[in-house]
Structures are given as C-alpha cells and as structure tokens.
C-alpha cells in the first residue's frame, strides 16, 4: 500500500532569510505532487526537509501518520533523484542501482535480478557495465531513477531531475518517470520550476512563492482557475487588466466597458484585476472609427510564430494584450494594423486588486 505524506506547518529560516513560511500539504497514497515555483521559492528546501537532509525550525513531516521529522535520512526509506548528476563515479550503472540493495543485505541473486529488471524498465539493460562518465546526461538520470526505485522506497523524491537535460530528452524522460510512477503506484514529490513539466505529469500541483504555497490543485484547476495573480502569471501566459467593477456587473477598463461574468458578485466601485488567457482573446481587423462597447481596440505591435498559433501583441493604450491567433488567420493582422480584441464574458477571472498587488510585488 502506497504511503501517505503530510507536511504540516513547515518553517525554515536561513540566517535572516525565511525559506519556508509554513508549508501545509498532504499527499494521498500513490499520488504524484509537483512543487512548482521560481528559483528561491522554497521548493527544494521543502523537499530536503522531507528527505531528512535538513531539519525544519518548526513543523512536522508525517509518513503514514507517523512523525519522521527527526528520523535520519538513511532510515526514511525514501528514494531520491537529484538535480546534479549523482551517480557514484567509482561504480558502474549496475553497481549504482545495486548499492541500496547491498546496504540492505539482499541476497546476490535477488540483487542481480532486481538490477536487471530496473535497468530494463528505464531502457538501459545494455548499459549496466558502463561507468557514469560513459553515459549521457539522460542515461545518468535514468540510472539514478532506477537506483532510487531499487530500494522500493515508500516515497519517491525528485529534485528537478531533468533541468540539466536538453528539451527532447526532458520530454521523453518525464513521460517515463510518470509511466513508472503510475505502474508502481509510488507516492511522489516532484520539484520543478518548469510549469509545462509539472502540469504534464502531476496528479496535483502546488505552486510556491516566497516560501508559501499559493495554491494546490489539479493541473486543469491551476490553469483554468488560478487563485492568485502569481499563480495566474506563473502558469501559462495571462493578460492582466486593472479595472473597476461597474454598476451593471461589467468592469470599467480605462473608460471602456467590458462584460465580465465573474465581476457580478463584486461590489460596484471595487478595484479588481481581470485575468484573460491569450487563447480566449479573439482579434478582428478594426476599420470603423468608433470604438464599440465590449471590445478593446488597439494596434498590433508584434507577432511571434509558435507553429499552429501565432502570439500577437497589441497595444490598447492602457497596456499590452497578448492573444494566440491561429497562424492561418494571422495574415489579416499585420504589425501596425488596428484590431479589436474581445473575449467571452464567462472566460475571464476576477481577483481583488489589493491582494494581487501584494502577491505580484
């Protein structure tokens, strides 16, 4: 049965710098949780506390309900894959995988069988006799994953294991990690700063910022319903419109009225931040001289080709908006063209501006 993990009110300060300011998160057995955030947000510190390489100033780490905060790392039964290549240079790939089993005094035949199985599961059955320096970065991390799994850990910890690899290998390996994790049903905490990576492999994602967890949710929830402007900006691209709630339920943005369903529950006159994803923003050429109600007129300032879509930036006077437009349509929106941007009233999120200023700053 896969282990449950709870992080309760974890705090850690380095000198005067608070790295963690009270982390609370729980993982169900077999769950894959990603700690996502920018550099310095405390995600690796949190992982190191779970692994036992560091002690919290306060708070507890529980596995299956048992407090392991003061248990030595060697006694925690947690497999870990590190950001830096961590294979023992004096051992072959097979000896690296076997290391934890030797420590546990498994029989030679059982060790050999397990090493073979694990190297096979990471696609390196032929590389067992090679030394770390004879393996590519991707292969080294595969062996490191096999080594971490060899001891049948209760929890698997991954600290940005793909950050040193090139893009193609990264995508390949993250899919492999997820496949193996699902197959083994092992509870996993994955630290990354790459939102695409976190969203593509996790059951849930916890976005961290300034030593705190901003929001925890499924990848879809995080993308479609960000709880804070930081989450909104960190996950995907987001247009931010500072506006005032109008009496008719819409919002007033720089003197222009826009329909936003989410603003109806707000008090008229309240300052809010309207969040709109680029893919819901629709652009049409604007030829008429009078600005219509419900749309934002601006001028195309740049186009960035991204394949099937092209990212178009328009200047609407009170700021810039970003829209993802189908590449086949983009010819009608050249740089310098006047366009009108609209979006469905139900597709925008509204957050109080007071909160957002604090978070964004």
């Amino acid at each position, binding site marked *: 049965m896969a282990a449950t993990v709870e992080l309760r009110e974890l705090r850690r300060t380095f000198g005067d710098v608070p790295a963690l300011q009270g982390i609370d998160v729980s993982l169900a057995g077999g769950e894959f949780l990603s700690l996502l955030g920018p550099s310095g947000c405390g995600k690796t510190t949190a992982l190191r506390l779970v*692994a036992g390489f560091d002690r919290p100033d306060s708070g507890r780490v529980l596995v299956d309900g048992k407090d392991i905060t003061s248990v*030595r*790392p060697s006694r925690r039964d947690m497999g870990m894959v590190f950001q830096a*290549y*961590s294979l023992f240079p004096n051992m072959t790939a097979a000896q690296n995988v076997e290391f934890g089993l030797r420590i546990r005094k498994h029989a030679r035949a059982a060790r050999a069988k397990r090493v073979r199985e694990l190297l096979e599961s990471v696609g390196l059955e032929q590389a067992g006799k090679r030394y770390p320096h004879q393996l590519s970065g991707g292969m080294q991390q595969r062996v490191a994953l096999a080594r971490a799994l060899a001891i049948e850990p209760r929890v698997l910890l991954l600290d940005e294991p793909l950050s040193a690899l090139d893009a193609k290998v990264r995508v390949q390996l993250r899919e492999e990690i997820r496949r193996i994790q699902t197959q083994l049903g092992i509870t996993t905490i994955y630290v990354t700063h790459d939102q695409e990576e976190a969203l593509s492999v996790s059951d849930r994602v916890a976005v961290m910022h300034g030593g705190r967890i901003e929001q925890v949710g499924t990848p879809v929830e995080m993308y479609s319903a960000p709880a804070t402007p930081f989450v909104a900006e960190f996950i995907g691209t987001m247009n931010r419109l500072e506006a005032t709630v109008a009496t008719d339920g819409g919002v007033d943005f720089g003197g222009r009225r826009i329909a936003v369903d989410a603003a109806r529950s707000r008090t008229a006159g309240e300052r809010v931040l309207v969040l709109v994803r680029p893919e819901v923003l629709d652009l049409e050429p604007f030829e008429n001289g009078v600005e219509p109600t419900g749309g934002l007129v601006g001028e195309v300032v740049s186009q960035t080709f991204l394949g099937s879509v092209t990212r178009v930036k328009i200047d609407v006077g009170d700021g810039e908006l970003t829209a993802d437009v189908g590449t086949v349509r983009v010819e009608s929106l050249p740089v310098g063209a006047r366009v009108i941007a609209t979006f469905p009233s139900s597709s925008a999120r509204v957050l109080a501006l007071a909160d957002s200023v604090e978070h964004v700053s």
Partner: protein
Amino acid sequence: MRRRFIAPSSLVWLVLAAAYFLIPLVATLLFSLRDSQTGTCCSLGAYGTIFDDPQFAKTLWLSFKLAVETVVISLVLFVPTVYWVHLKLPRLRPVIASLALLPFVVPPIVLVVGMLDVYGGWSPGWFYSTPQFLVAAYVVLAFPYVFFALDAGFRAIDVHTLTEASQSLGASWRTTLGRVIIPNVRTAALSGALLTLAIVMGEFTIASLAAFHTFPTYIQYVNQTQAYPAAALTLISFGITWFAMLGILVAGRRPGGRQMAMRGGG
C-alpha cells in the same frame, strides 16, 4: 590515420628539458660506475659497497617504516577532516588552508625543539626515545601536502550530492565515507601519500637534529666519507622514489579510467 606532427621548436625545447634532467643523472651514473681503486670505468663496486653495508638496509627500512606510519596517520586524520570541512564547515576551509602553510614557515629547528619540549615531560620512552618520535613531526610536516592534495580531490567531486544520494539509499556515515567518498578521492589521497612518502624518505634536518639515524642521515654520512658509493646511493634512492611513484600510479588507476565526469545534454 593522420601522422602527428611535432614542430621543430617544440622538439628543441623537449631536448633541452630532457637534457636538464638527464645530464646530471647520467653524470652521476658514470661517476658511480668508476672503480674505487683506479677511478676508471666501469665497475659495480660502489653499488656492492652500498648493498653490503648493513646500515643501508637498516636505515632504508626505518625510513620506509616511518614514511608508511606517517602516511597512515595523515590519511586517517585528514581524509575524514577534509570531508567534514567540505560537507559541513566550508567556512573553515580557508582557516585550515592557512594552518597548513605553517610547516613551510616554521623552521625545522623550532619544530624539533618545540616537539621535544612538548613530548619530553609525559610521553612514554618507546615513543620519545626512539625514531617513532619522528612520526609526530613528520605528520606535521606532511600536513600541507596531504591537505592540499585531498582538498583538490574533494573539490573535484560533488561531495554534498554523493553523500545525500548515499544516505537516501540507506547508507550510514561510515559506509558513505568508505564506499562512496574515499574511492572517489583515491587518486588525491594517493598523491598526498606519495608526497608524504617522498618527504619522509628524504627528510634530513629533523632526523639529524633529533639525533636519529635514518636513510637521509645515512646518505649524508656516505656522502662525506665515500665518493663513488655516494653517487651509487643517490641513484638508488632516486630509483626507490621512481618505483614508489610508479606504484602509486598503478594503484591509482581505476576501472572506468576517469576521476569524475559531469556531462550534460542527452
């Protein structure tokens, strides 16, 4: 296959450098081969004189024994210390590096007098009155060589990650040090050991001042009394050093062929 091309200017420098080292050796060799009676070439008499002298084997064995003891004590003391400093106390590294320079600036006479004074009052006779006493001085003397060699070795590996990886797999501190860390600083430790061996095998001042008869004091004695055997002895001690170096190089070779590799990409 492309032929390697050596520029003539490089060849000139190579020959000059080789001559700088080889001419004295060849001259010493030729000198050592002269007959002690006639002074003409070529006789192995000088070598015979050395090998027949019981003091040769006795002092060589004593110096070798002291060197091995110094190497063992130095490594036992410094490998865990340097490991711990790199892992937990990196701020102490410059302090220890400064301390390691002290044996270079403290004159041997000060070291000997100081140590005789320190150990004189309380240490047992088998230590204080025998050449074993020299080991205490030699460990101090070897400190910079062992420390800087080990320090370079520890800098070449990711001590933190290797330690944490080992611990996460269930290894204790002792297992981590023995199976993961030491094998990966083996070359550095062997370099430190070689330097220590060379220093102790050639250390004259302290042994002479403390009035112990070691291999270097024997060389000095022969040098003052017998010309041709002295040259032979010089070459023999040179050969011993080379043999020791070769031994270290052979022992330092490891499977896989590289100390540590960090490679990125796919």
